Every structure is written in structure tokens, then in C-alpha cells.
């Protein structure tokens, strides 16, 4: 099922990684921060919404020292000035290469929509076959803002030419993390 997920997500221009555990996932995230040149200037910053996957592995102070533009305080101003946003998703949907989360917490939406690069982690163990399977599992009266993301933001509104990154991220980096994680 993961290979289907990978193929479908790549087909819509997402970058897909799989990490055997949280530590390797963290390395992948840091590599993206380095690659994207995160620094302490408007447009170069990064916002990080912690979650159960990497929560316990994050030495926040050390990370902020290493990437001076990085913040774990996600506000709309910070997110709007950031190049990279990092969030944790709850599910993957193999049939369409989709990731899904309860995004009731607005910080999740800010960090995943305003920056140009969105890094999304999700537990491989919560890969579902498709959207129908997700709808069966989720109670929308609890998950009040359910968000499904399939590839980066795109448009074909001018002469039907596919162009990536209109209002949301231009790059979507998905990291599927093996192992069990609590919560949600």
C-alpha cells in the first residue's frame, strides 16, 4: 500500500520519503531546512507545529540555535514570513497519495498553507486505502476542520498550463514515519 501511496503522491509532484523511525525523520526535516536556506529574515524563516511523531525528539532550543529563523510559535505573521512550514498529519490515503489531518487548530493550517515549502510527517501505520476509509473513521463533529492535501498548490487557469504553487506551498515534502505514535 505504501508503494501505491508513494507513486500517487509523486504523480502529483509531492516529494516522498519514508523513515524507519522518528530520529531519521528528524534528520530528513533538518535536511530540508538546510537545503531551503532557512535563516532569520522575512521570507526565509520556518514555523514548526510539534506533534506526537517528533514531539519528544525535539530539542527546541538547540534547533533554534542551529536555524535562527525557526520558530515553534506559529502565528499568522510568522507563518506569512516563512519559507518552510512543518506539520504532522494523521493519515495517509494510498489511492490518491493524499495526507489528511484534523486541522481544527489553526496553527496547522497556517504552517501548511502560507510558507512556500510544506514538510508533512505522518505515521506509516496510519496509511488507509482511500478517502472512503477515512470518512468511515472520522467523526466530523469532533474533527471540525478536516483537511486533505494531495500534492502542492496548483492551477491550470491560464491556458490550462499546469503551474505549481499559486496560493499555497510550491513544494510538498511528505515523510512517512514507521513505528507507533500516541494520540489522535
Amino acid at each position: 500500500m505504501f508503494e501505491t501511496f508513494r507513486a500517487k503522491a509523486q504523480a502529483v509532484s509531492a516529494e516522498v520519503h519514508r523513515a524507519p523511525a522518528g530520529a531519521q525523520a528528524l534528520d530528513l526535516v533538518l535536511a530540508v531546512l538546510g537545503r531551503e536556506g532557512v535563516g532569520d529574515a522575512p521570507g526565509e524563516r520556518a514555523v514548526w507545529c510539534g506533534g506526537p511523531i517528533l514531539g519528544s525528539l525535539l530539542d527546541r532550543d538547540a534547533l533554534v540555535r542551529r536555524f535562527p529563523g525557526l520558530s515553534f510559535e506559529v502565528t499568522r505573521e510568522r507563518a506569512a514570513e516563512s519559507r518552510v512550514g512543518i506539520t504532522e498529519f494523521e493519515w495517509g490515503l494510498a489511492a490518491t497519495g493524499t495526507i489528511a489531518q484534523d486541522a481544527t487548530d489553526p496553527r496547522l493550517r497556517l504552517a501548511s498553507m502560507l510558507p512556500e515549502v510544506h514538510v508533512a510527517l505522518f505515521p506509516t501505520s496510519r496509511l488507509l486505502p482511500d478517502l472512503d476509509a477515512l470518512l468511515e473513521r472520522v467523526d466530523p463533529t469532533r474533527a471540525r476542520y478536516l483537511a486533505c492535501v494531495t500534492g502542492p498548490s496548483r492551477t491550470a487557469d491560464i491556458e490550462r498550463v499546469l503551474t505549481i504553487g499559486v496560493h499555497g506551498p510550491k513544494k510538498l515534502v511528505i515523510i512517512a514515519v514507521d513505528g507507533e505514535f500516541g494520540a489522535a
Partner: protein
Amino acid sequence: MATTDLKARVNDALENGSLAGALGRFNEAYVASRARAYEGIDFEALRDQLVGLKGRAAAHLDELAEQFEEKATQAGATVFRTSDPAEVKQYLARLCKENGVKRIAKSKSMATEEMHLNAFLAEQGIEVAETDLGEWIVQLAGQRPSHMVMPAIHMSKEQVAGIFSREVKEELAADIPALVAVARRELRQKFLGADMGITGANVAVAETGTLVVVTNEGNARLVSTLPRIQVAVVGVEKLVERFADVGPILKALPRSATGQLLTSYVSMFTGPSPGADGQPKELHVILLDHRRTHMARDPRFAQALRCIRCASCVNVCPVYRLLGGHVFGGVYTGGIGAILATWFEAIKSSKDIQSLCIQCGACIPVCPTRIDIPEMIVELRRRLAKEEGHPFIQKAALRMVNDRRIFHGLLRAASKAQKPFAKKGMIRHLPFFFSGMTEHRSLPAIADVPFRDRFEGIAQPAGAKDKAAFYAGCLVDFAYPGIGESVVKVLNAAGVEVTFPQAQTCCGAPARYAGAFDVAARNAKDNITALEDPEVRWVVSACPTCTVALRHEFAATLEAEGHADWAERAEAMASKVRDFSSLVKELADAGRLTVEAAKGLEAVTYHDSCHLKRKLHAHEPPRQLLGAAGFELKEMKDSDSCCGMGGSYSLKFPEISAPILARKLENIRATGAETVAMDCPGCMLQIGGGLDLAGSTARTRHVADLIADKVRPARPAGGK
């Protein structure tokens, strides 16, 4: 007069080469990407699901709206339900005033287009920014969307560059990624600066009070997150019963709309979520009825409420492809737009739009909710005709057809009068007001001896096992009597005696498609009287349009005109009606007839006529017969796309019919085949005439003519 204005707009669109080019390329790419997206999906099973769930919802709009209101209110939303678009405007004006709203960021809501909300809000001094890229382009250009999914599909990148340059006051190049970057920069400020965000919804779930919004750009996510007040304006036809119903809709919508498995973003909100600052925010859901429940009570139009606005009907429409949505459409585009305009605006507002439908039915097999748009268009025409009557000349012409003796007498007279214009059985130029008929194609000359007079000279086999009544239809009877002779020959070979009831007359299709149901009903009665015969096992026709009339439309026409007893007789006859190729295939399969393969036959290409393919579903039988007769079949591209004939359509809109025909001729030419086989004399008239006028050596042939000398009675050897 509206029609003159329509003609002018049609001509403007046709002269706009970049429009036709863009739409044509889109059409070709769409067909392929849609097919890829549906790979591995049982489309018919999905349609069953969607027809079920959307149909149930449409039948219970009021209850679902009530339930939605209750659930969404429980979740913390404020729900406002109204039938009146003016009340939506007032509600929003008040909401803006009370909350000091000066700027609004909006993601797509078709319902707001119905009430021209943006113009109203601007009058209130409120700045509204459409944030879907296509909608923004159209907004800046002061236009309206020309397509439901791709609002600016009619514009070139040069035009977009011009519009953006004016907006940002700098000279921009026509470079698409750069233009998109400009839109990102400009609209980002609109998102961040807006006090209110307005979205529509693709689905509204009654059992949970959830709204589902899909976008590719992500604008609805930003609109529903950044501004402090969130509003959704939603038509009640978006309601479904259950949360699980979202699944099938989202399986079909992106695939049918853009050939995607899923859009980049799907957001489902149930009540308000905290604002960007973490504080509680307001969510107002405006559920707009605007005559939708009224529509749901109309048995002929309720099906339109199943529409999920994927626009696949428009994407495959040969007329939309030429004209675009500004001519062929209102707030909603294409044929479905004509129907919705009737209800959301007024029946008269759809008059021009609906007249553009050629009735080819290309939209029927792609609709994920099985909406029959052409049938509803015919019903619209019927109601318009009842309301306004037909123009005098048209009515006179239809009446003429209605009286068999006058009509047939005229045709006989014409056969004499045409002599000076006919050459080798074709008429290339007609004088005076008939000239439009021969501008883009030649016409077949009217036969010296019609089939009805020839039939008497064909001896019928004695003691035949079965009898079939042959229904010729006007074209076979008076223009192509040879086809009738071939039909008789083939059926005789199968041991079937053929009868030709002389009282048969026009099938009524021209009248019906023009909405003149009274005329069509009269035709139906005359034909039923002529063809009803308990000894006859089949009623067979070599014209698919006539076959559809006899088999499917007589009963419906008579029913609509209130002749229930006649409708019953029509039903009884309908079960006997067959198109030529299907019946011959049936006889061959039953061992009553052998088609012998001849050697060294020419290659043929086959044109599927609209009625045969999409109403009678006879795609295979003619191909199997041709194959059995030894013809090499060279398939043309889009063999089932309309030839542009559409009955009287080619007379009413020759300027639209001509480019549709040109495309067909090009696809034929590309096969290299010199023979174009088909089952429809109407298509023969159009395609044959087009080939003749273009000086092509290729010729059209009816399948009956191609196989007539290759059939023989099956020997009783092997039994059944």
C-alpha cells in the same frame, strides 16, 4: 430581436480563432485525461451510487436543509436559510456593517454569481477580491466566467498579461509562471487583509452540518482560515444525507472535472474553527433555495438537481467547443446552464442558450449523475413553444410535414423542380433563400421515384416465417430509396416478408426537437395507425433518428400531450422496433442469415451516428456486419462525434454545423478510407454533401447497401 443578437454573438465567437483553438485543444486533452483518471473505477457502479444519493437528497431538500441547520447550529454556526437572493445580499450587507467589514476575500461560490453579489457589495463600498486565479482574472476583466471549472479558459496568456499589467501598474510579459507569481503576491495581500472570507461549498452534509470545499489552488483554505469572519453561500442542491456520501462525490468530481484523482485540497468544516489568532470566530452558512425546491417538484427537471458542477458535459460538447461559455451559457455554462437559467432566472432567459444544443447526446454518457440534458432541452423547447408559440414560418413548415399528402406531394414536385440544379444525384447550389442549405455541403437530389412507389415492384417471398414492417422515413423514401431496396433484400434473404404501410409519414423528430409536441404527437398517431399490425414481428428502420422516435419518443410525446391511450399503443409498438443493423445481427445470430465475406474489398471507416450510438447503443452490430462481409475497418478518430447535421440544426445554425462537419471530414480523410460507412441517412446527407463539396473522392454508404449483395439465406444444416 434576440435571435439576431444571438447570431451576432455566435459569429463573433466563431471568428475568434484563439477561442476555438484553446477550447479545441482542451477538449482533446480532457477526453484523454478523464479516461486515465477513471482507470480501474467502475463508472457505472459509481453513477448508480451518485444517482441514488443525489436523487434521494433532491427529493428531500427541505428536510435536509432543516437537519443541516440543526446540526450546523449545534456545532456553533449561524445558519440563514432563504429562497430569495435579495435576502442574501441584505443579510451580508448587515453582517458587514455590524462588523466593520471593509474587505472580503472570496473563493468560488457559483450561488453568489446567481445574484451578482460582487457588484452589490461594491455598491456598499466593500472591496471584494475573487481569489481563484481564473475568477480573479475574469473579475479584473469585468467579465463573467465562461466555464464552471475553468472560468478564464477563453483568455490567452497575452490577454491575462494585459489585465494584470493594468492592475499592478507595471508591464508584465505573457509568461505563465510569472503571471501566476504576480497573482500569488497580489492575492496574498487580499487574504491577509480581508475582514471576511466567503466560500461556497461542493457538498453540504445534513447529518453532521459539515461543508466540503475542494480547490486546487488552496484559496478556500486561506479564505476559511485567515479572515475573522467566515461565510459560506451554498445552494441547497449541495445537500446530501450522510457524511459517507461525500466519498462517491469526491470520487467523481475531480476525475470528471479535471481528470484528477483528487483535488490538491479538500476541506471539510463542521461549525467554526478557531481563527488564525486562536480566538473563536463566526461562521455564517447561507443556504440558498432560489427555486431549487420548486425545480425538485417538477418531474421533468428534478434530475438537474443531481448536478455536481463537474462541467464534463460542457467539456465534451461540440457546440461549446466552438462558441465557449459566454455565448453558450448564462451564469452556468453549456446545456446544463440553459436548464439552470430557466429556473434560477426565467424560462425566457434560456431561450437563446438552449437553441444552441444540437441534441447529439455527447454529454449523456459522461455525466456522473446520469443527467439527460438533451431531453430536458427538448422539454424546455416544448414549454417555450406552448408559452410563446413558434415563429410563423417554422410552424407553417412543421404543419406541412404534418400533413402527409401535402408533404409528399411537395417532395414529388420538388423532384421535378430541382432538375436544373442536380448533377450526378447531388445539388451543389440552390437559388434564393435556399442557398444557405448548400453553402457548406451539397444536397442529395430528390429521387425520381420514391421508395414508396418502388416497393410495389419488389415481390415478397411466399410463406415467410416472419413479417417485418419497414419504416422508411423521409430521407430513405425520397432521397435514398436504394437503401430501402437493400433493406428489403437483406430481410428477404433471412426469410422475412417485408411490408410497407403506405400511410406512414414523418417520424415527428423535427417537430419534437423544435418543441412542437402537438405536431409530433399527430405524426406519432398517424404512424402508429399505419404500423400497428399484430402479424408484424418487427418494425424496422434504416434511420436511427426515426428508430429512436418510434422506439422511445412516440410514447413520451403522446404522454406529454395528454394522450395516455395513444401512449399505451405507442409502448406496445415500441417493443417491436429495431434499427436495421441490430435486427440483421440478431437474425444472423439466430442462424437465419449468413453474411459471406467477399475477398479484396475496399477499406471502410465507420461513422457512429448520435442516435444509434447513444440512444440505441448499437455500436457493435454494424461493425460486426461489415467485418463479416469482408470489409477492412479503419477506425477514425472520434468516430462517435456528431457530424453537425442535427436535423434542422444545420439549417438553423449552418455557421456552427459547418465547423463541426469540417472536423468530421478531417478525421475521415486521415483514415485514407474511400468509403465512409454509416447507418444514418441524415449523416449521409451531411457527410456525403461535405465530401462532395470539398471535392473528395470518398463516398458515404449505408451499411444496408454495403452488405446487401453479401447475404444469403442460412442453410438449415447445423440447426440452431
